[in-house]
C-alpha cells in the first residue's frame, strides 16, 4: 500500500479543511479521515497571552517529522498523511499545526494521528514562547507529553487496524 504523504513547515496560515479535502477528494478507497488541529489558546496557566512565537530548526523540523510519518506509514495501513506546522508569531484563535490521516478503517487513522501528535510534541524541533504582560517566556516541556510519546514504543501498532 502506498500512502500519499505531505509535510510542510511554513510561516503562513493554512486551511485545515482544504488540506483534509485534498487527501480524500475523488477517492473511493478511503473509509476514514482523522484530523487534529492545534490552536493557539488565549491563556496559558490561567493568564491571558498576547501571542505565541514558535522558533524551529529549519531542515531538521522537516526531516524529523518526515521520519515519524514514515514510521506511521510502516506501522498502520494508511492511505494518506498530511502534517503542517507553522512557525513565527501566532495570535490566539489561529491554527498552529495540523495532522490528518486517512485509511480504509478508523482504527488506523485514529491511532496514527495520535502517534504523530505525541511524537511531534516531544521530538520535532519547535520551541514555543508566550507573550504575556509585556514579557516573553519560553514554554516548559511537559512530563505528560514525554509519557504520551513513550507509550508508543511498546505498542504493536499494525494489528490495531486488523
Amino acid at each position, binding site marked *: 500500500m502506498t500512502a500519499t504523504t505531505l509535510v510542510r513547515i511554513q510561516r503562513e496560515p493554512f486551511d485545515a479543511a482544504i488540506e483534509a479535502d485534498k487527501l480524500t477528494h475523488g477517492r473511493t478507497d478511503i473509509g476514514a479521515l482523522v484530523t487534529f488541529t*492545534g490552536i493557539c489558546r488565549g491563556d496559558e496557566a490561567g493568564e491571558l497571552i498576547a501571542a505565541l512565537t*514558535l*522558533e524551529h*530548526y529549519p*531542515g531538521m523540523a522537516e*526531516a*524529523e517529522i518526515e521520519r515519524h510519518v514514515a514510521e506511521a506509514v510502516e506501522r498502520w495501513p494508511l492511505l494518506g498523511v498530511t502534517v503542517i506546522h507553522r512557525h513565527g508569531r501566532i495570535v490566539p484563535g489561529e491554527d498552529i499545526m495540523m495532522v490528518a490521516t486517512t485509511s480504509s478503517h478508523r482504527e488506523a487513522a485514529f491511532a496514527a494521528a495520535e502517534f504523530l501528535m505525541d511524537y511531534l510534541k516531544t*521530538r520535532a524541533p*519547535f520551541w514555543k514562547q508566550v507573550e504575556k504582560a509585556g514579557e516573553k517566556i519560553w514554554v516548559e516541556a511537559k512530563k505528560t507529553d514525554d509519557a504520551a510519546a513513550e507509550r508508543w514504543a511498546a505498542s504493536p501498532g499494525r494489528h490495531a487496524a486488523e
Partner: protein
Amino acid sequence: MTIKLRYFAWVRERVGKTEEDIEVPSGVATVGELMVWLSSRGEEYAHAFTNPKIIRAAIDRTHVKPQTSLEGAGEIAFFPPMTGG
C-alpha cells in the same frame, strides 16, 4: 576538526549567538564532552550549559545522546526540550 554549532530557543539566548564554527579540542570525543568544554568557554556558555542533562542535541539534524561520538559530524545543534505541536 572544525564543526558548526547551532543554538536554539533559550540556549541561543544565553549563548548570545545563533551559530558559530569551532575547532574541537583534542580529548573532546562525544556530545556530552563537548557540552562540558563549551560550558568552560565563558559566563554565557556556563549559563547556557549549567544543567547539561536538560539540553538536547542533534548531529546533522538527527537527535543524538550525550554519549554519541562527534566523529564525522558537520553540524551540531543544542536546544532545550521541544515544545511544538
